[in-house]
């Protein structure tokens, strides 16, 4: 585990991965957008409005995926004091928040014409809104302390506590009556979605994953540089106070 703990090694690895994740993101999102908007058929019931699904569903997956990643990084930071894990958890939070926000917004834009309402307080929608608040809480908490160490620790605990929400989101549609329909792609007996519509959905999903990796690398680099800057500044202050 600690083989990857070294920031210098992370930076070397990041340099190799970044062009690939960028290329995959551009290719998948480009072709995904084409298929989502033009190259796929309209739904037999929902007509053209089904195209919102190709943003909505991958965003929802990413919202839950990023939170899981954040919780795992946080656990690694708390248990093994892995020096990079805190930074990666912190770097993931804004991406997850952005996708969760997109999921809620596109869901609303889809719900209005199809269900007849922008919003319903059913278990799926409510638990997804809680996920957004957990991200916002995490981002506020991680920056709320003068000592970054304490901020990381407090935020990591919040991330772990909030992780119970993820399975609740996933299975809310099975546990309770909801306005939201149950899962289409990941279900027993194969996906309930035609292959012509599965293609853009999966392209967008892979593109979003690659986008997350690119952003994680960029934000990770910023965090590592920020930490080095702090160390140098502290050394300068220390040297100045010694009357050099």
């Amino acid at each position: 585990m600690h083989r990857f703990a070294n920031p210098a090694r992370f930076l070397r690895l990041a340099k190799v991965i970044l062009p690939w994740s960028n290329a995959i993101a551009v290719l998948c999102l480009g072709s995904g957008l084409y298929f989502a908007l033009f190259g796929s058929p309209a739904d037999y019931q929902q007509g053209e409005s089904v195209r919102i699904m190709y943003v909505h569903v991958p965003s929802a997956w990413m919202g839950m995926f990023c939170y899981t990643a954040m919780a795992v990084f946080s656990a690694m930071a708390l248990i093994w004091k892995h020096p990079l894990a805190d930074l990666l958890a912190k770097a993931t939070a804004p991406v997850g928040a952005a996708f969760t926000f997109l999921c809620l917004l596109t869901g609303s834009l889809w719900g209005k014409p199809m269900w007849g309402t922008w919003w319903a307080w059913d278990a799926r929608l409510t638990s997804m809104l809680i996920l957004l608040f957990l991200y916002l809480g995490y981002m506020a908490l991680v920056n709320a302390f003068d000592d970054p160490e304490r901020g990381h620790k407090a935020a990591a605990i919040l991330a772990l506590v909030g992780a119970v929400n993820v399975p609740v989101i996933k299975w809310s549609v099975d546990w309770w009556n909801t306005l939201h329909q149950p899962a289409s792609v990941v279900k027993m007996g194969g996906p309930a979605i035609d292959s012509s519509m599965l293609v853009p959905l999966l392209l967008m999903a892979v593109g979003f994953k690659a986008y997350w990796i690119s952003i994680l690398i960029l934000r990770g680099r910023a965090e590592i540089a920020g930490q080095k800057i702090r160390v140098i500044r502290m050394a300068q202050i220390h040297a100045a106070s010694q009357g050099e």
Partner: protein
Amino acid sequence: MESFQAMLHMGGYGGYVWSAYGVGIAVLALVLVLSLTSARKAEAELDVLQQARRARRGKDLGGTDSESQE
């Protein structure tokens, strides 16, 4: 031209579909730009600090030992 109109119209759902994609692209682009600028800014600042430190060390030690840091 007609098909372009049909594309915008999206069977009557144009407003919903296009605003979903518009906001989607805007949000992801915003996160990308913010991440890129924060990485560039932090790395540039670090560069300046490290060069200044290197230069100072070089002066202190008569310019012989400028690479020994880190």
